[in-house]
């Protein structure tokens, strides 16, 4: 109680403009939306820190194919070949100037920050699971119970496999899909968690990048539709509704159902993307509050620092929860949709 009062007093002092030393406009204007968007987007180098105008960053390989000459270039962001430039109007992507002055986007297969981050996650996952698999190989799986790290991994795998995959798809078909769904879960979960680490081996906004969630959603869509059984397709094209709804004059129900085939994965894509991007954006905004506060004066700086630190701690804890829930929800919804595509024939 005592502490609460003193904290409140400190906040009160900090927020009252009389105590704050009104500093005249600082040299460089803080552009918070730009900073946040820059951190959210993919980039050609892995920026770590800046100090007095000097940037410390890990260069990542840029691989572009020139539309002009047709040859491939391998370089870094600092040694960009002639004719290429970073187009600031188009999110800093590489563009090429043709001899006739036209500006086009060349074929760009660069190892960007997001790609590097995915590779790091993949290496982590392979190490973890090969280690766990090794444990089971050496021992008798029936009698020995795993402890420690292997135990945690077994708990997670069994939880997803039994509670999500098996119960949503059903005893008969779940084995075929369990590898894909478990991979999706652990990939999304690890990328989400690693994305919350602010410095080098993490911090890239991978699952908050719509291209990656699009790919995951397309995988789920293929898993649903390629192996759907006869009942599933019958439900779509010839559902049990009155004839005028499904054949003549307008086949309303088939159109709606066919639309549903695409909206399900679309919702998966948007859900994961929006949740992770919003989380990153909120954390970055609270970080920017610190700089905003200090640019307004010492009093504001101290007060807003305190506020920002508390909110950042809270948001980061919340994001750890969200990271798990989103991976869980993605896996569960994929499993439910796959389960719907394996409907058992029910007698009328």
């Amino acid at each position, binding site marked *: 109680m005592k502490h609460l009062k003193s904290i409140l007093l400190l906040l009160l002092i900090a927020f009252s403009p009389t105590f704050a030393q009104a500093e005249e406009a600082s040299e460089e204007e803080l552009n918070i939306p730009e900073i946040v968007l820059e951190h959210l987007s993919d980039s050609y180098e892995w920026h770590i820190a800046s100090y007095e105008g000097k940037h410390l960053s890990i260069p990542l390989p840029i691989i572009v194919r020139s539309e002009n000459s047709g040859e491939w270039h391998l370089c870094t962001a600092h040694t960009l070949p002639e004719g290429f430039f970073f187009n600031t109007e188009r999110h800093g992507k590489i563009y090429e100037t043709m001899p006739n002055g036209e500006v086009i986007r060349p074929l760009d297969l660069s190892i960007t920050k997001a790609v590097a981050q995915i590779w790091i996650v993949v290496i982590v996952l392979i190490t973890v699971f090969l280690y766990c698999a090794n444990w089971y190989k050496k021992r008798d799986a029936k009698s020995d119970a795993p402890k420690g790290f292997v135990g945690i991994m077994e708990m997670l795998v069994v939880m997803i496999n039994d*509670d*999500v995959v098996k*119960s949503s798809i059903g005893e008969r078909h779940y084995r075929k899909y369990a590898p894909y769904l478990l991979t999706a879960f652990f990939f999304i979960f690890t990328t989400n968690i690693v994305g919350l680490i602010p410095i080098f081996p993490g911090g890239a906004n991978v699952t908050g990048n719509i291209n990656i969630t699009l790919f995951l959603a397309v995988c789920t869509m293929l898993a649903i539709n390629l192996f759907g059984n006869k009942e599933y397709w019958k439900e779509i094209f010839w559902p049990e509704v009155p004839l005028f709804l499904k054949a003549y004059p307008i086949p309303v129900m088939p159109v709606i159902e066919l639309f549903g085939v695409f909206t399900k994965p679309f*919702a998966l894509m*948007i*859900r994961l*993307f*929006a*949740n992770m991007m*919003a989380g990153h954006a909120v954390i970055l905004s609270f970080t920017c509050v610190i700089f905003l506060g200090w640019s307004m004066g010492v009093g504001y700086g101290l007060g807003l620092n305190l506020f920002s630190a508390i909110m950042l701690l809270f948001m980061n804890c919340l994001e750890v929860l969200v990271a798990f*829930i989103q991976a*869980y*929800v993605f896996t*569960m*919804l994929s499993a*439910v949709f796959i389960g719907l595509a394996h409907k058992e024939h029910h007698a009328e």
Partner: protein
Amino acid sequence: MIISILAAEGLAQLGCGIGAGIATIGAGLGIGKIGGSAMDAIARQPEATGKIQTNMILTSAFVEGCALFAIAACAFLIK
């Protein structure tokens, strides 16, 4: 003329903000109802907690999905 253009832009931004807010209200109501009912159900049948929780998360994911569509649309419109 200029004032009306500026006002129109301001109104557009206002619309984005209000749209996001309404979407959030809807999602809040929906998820609140799901959570409340789930709590009721768990209080009545504590042994079914696991099943209820799974379905609760699943249903709230659907509601949240709708809200996120709206919020994504508003976020893309806002400047």
